[in-house]
């Protein structure tokens, strides 16, 4: 997995609340059997008309935001389905951090499996960063995972919370499965005991 340490970049503003996984990557693109190549269809139905032409008003189609690496989004981002295609599509587009007041549980977890950092901040701070995002190239936002801080364009520093294990994996680009397989003896022991206790499982 790709490491995440620091990031400074242009943030795209998406103040809409409840941006769901069907918006992020509509189901017709879930038919792939690969993880890559979904970036061109990120936000497909908001981004293109039914002829496949770009909708100029949509934020990621605007010149300032075509290479955004950060999204500042409305509350409850990523609600809906468990599709990991949502973070895959965001990452493939080039977005590695989303900042919001809250995330849906499965989407939030899926981000960390793909070297992405979702950041939860209070409304007032998200509002300040949303204003930065509206200024495009003129107001870049910085993120430092080690110190757990986001720095706004004019230098205001906001701290965010993150689970220590998730932080450790992200900073070091660690693969969960490899880590878990180091505990295979515990799994074996649990399985033996559980087979005794609940043989019907």
């Amino acid at each position, binding site marked *: 997995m790709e490491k995440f340490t620091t990031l400074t970049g242009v943030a795209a503003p998406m103040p809409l609340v409840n941006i769901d996984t069907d*918006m992020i990557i509509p189901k017709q693109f879930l038919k792939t059997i690969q993880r890559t190549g979904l970036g061109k269809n990120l936000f497909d139905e908001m981004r293109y008309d039914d002829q496949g032409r770009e909708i100029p008003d949509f934020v990621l189609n605007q010149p300032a935001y075509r290479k955004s690496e950060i999204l500042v989004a409305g509350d409850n981002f990523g609600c809906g389905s468990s599709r990991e295609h949502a973070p895959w599509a965001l990452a493939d587009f080039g977005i590695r951090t989303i900042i919001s007041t809250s995330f849906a*549980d499965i989407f939030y977890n899926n981000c960390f499996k793909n070297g992405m950092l979702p950041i939860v901040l209070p409304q007032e701070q998200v509002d300040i960063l949303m204003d930065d995002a509206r200024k495009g190239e003129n107001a870049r936002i910085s993120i430092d995972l080690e110190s757990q801080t986001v720095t706004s364009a004019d230098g205001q520093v906001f701290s965010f919370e993150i689970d220590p294990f998730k932080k450790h994996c992200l900073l070091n680009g660690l693969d969960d499965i490899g880590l878990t*397989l180091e505990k295979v003896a515990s799994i074996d022991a649990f399985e033996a005991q559980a087979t005794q206790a609940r043989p019907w499982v």
Partner: protein
Amino acid sequence: MTKTLYDKIWDAHVVHEDTDGTCLLYIDRHLVHEVTSPQAFEGLRMTGRKLRAPDKTIAVPDHNVPTTPDRENGIENEESRIQVEALDRNAREFGVHYYPVNDVRQGIVHIVGPEQGWTLPGMTVVCGDSHTATHGAFGALAHGIGTSEVEHVLATQTLIQKKSKNMKVEITGSLPPGVTAKDITLSVIGATGTAGGTGYVIEYCGQAIEELSIEGRMTVCNMAIEGGARAGLIAPDEKTFQYVQGRPHAPKGAQWDAAMAWWKTLKSDPDAHWDKVVTLKAEEIAPVVTWGTSPEDVLPITDSVPDPASFAGGKVEAARRALDYMGLTPGQKLTDIEIDTVFIGSCTNGRIEDLRAAAEILKGRKIKVKRAMVVPGSGLVRAQAEEEGLAQIFIDAGFEWRLAGCSMCLAMNPDQLSPGERCAATSNRNFEGRQGRGGRTHLMSPAMAAAAAITGRLTDIRDMMAETA
């Protein structure tokens, strides 16, 4: 220390706990479908890892499969066909339990699991699908996971998890006539919002929940994710045990007795700690429909389309966008909204009881909508509905009688809405584009969807019941 049902199931499955509370949780059942698994199986191949517990892994194709009678000729859409073929190959190569498209037991993974007795009380159940919460109806801890986690479970039969908080949703009293499990679950989301359950596992309880059938309980738990919760569950009782007993993969003989001894302990202690409590009175729950593009946009059918200005914060803009997308105007009576299409099915409402409820309304009547389809949740539900004469009632009313699959709930197969087409649906999501680009979805119970099919507009089922009586 007193415990909730969630605490008890959690504690029984912890393999390892780190000092920071990160746990390795053992998974008893892993359900797999064709959309979220190909990359996970490919990951195993690329790393040379083995599938740890093929006997606890159950696979069935459901999202992509066509539901028209000609599906035995194969899947026309190439990408869908490749995905289903990939599941075929993976299931056989890794030796998991498998129900292929042409097996009568095939169906939506969350209907097949309970039907075959794979889902049992006290289990941990996961699937690369957010509606895995359905299995919570049996007193199992069941939730959706992403594809990386699917690969993790395939390789290790565990998940890395931190414990959620406990939330109690109590529905007191008895449901009035015409009000169903779907109305309960939608009303709860209406009350708490789609993020109200974020960070929690919900236990549904109270008289109205106890009085629900197992099918109804599955409908309630199914939509826990729509309220943002990791999982929803209901303590098992005699109804649960009766439903489970005799199913192909349920325990038998001495093992049944041993299982029952444990299952009977699976309830929250009377003085258990709840981090959040929500109480609704069943008497105050009405038949509801959704008006917008989020499952929290729910109102009693007697109400009118709301004014976006009546909301606060970011919801004002979201509601304005939703009304624009849905083609509705504030103040419009919900019962004046005309419907083009009716879809009855999905893991929320594709079980036999749902088909019975719809058929009861449709008997001897004709549909007024342009098209209507019933998609049974499994081949066995379909067979039972045919045996009970329900299929003929649907066909006589003008419904298409389909084969089992997810179908128009998420429209990955050819069952889709056209732009602007308005649908009364028994499924679980009314998101923009969910049932087809530009399609407009109103969520409701099977009986309400059947009523809409007859009148051609959103309809209060209680008016129709009065007519029938």
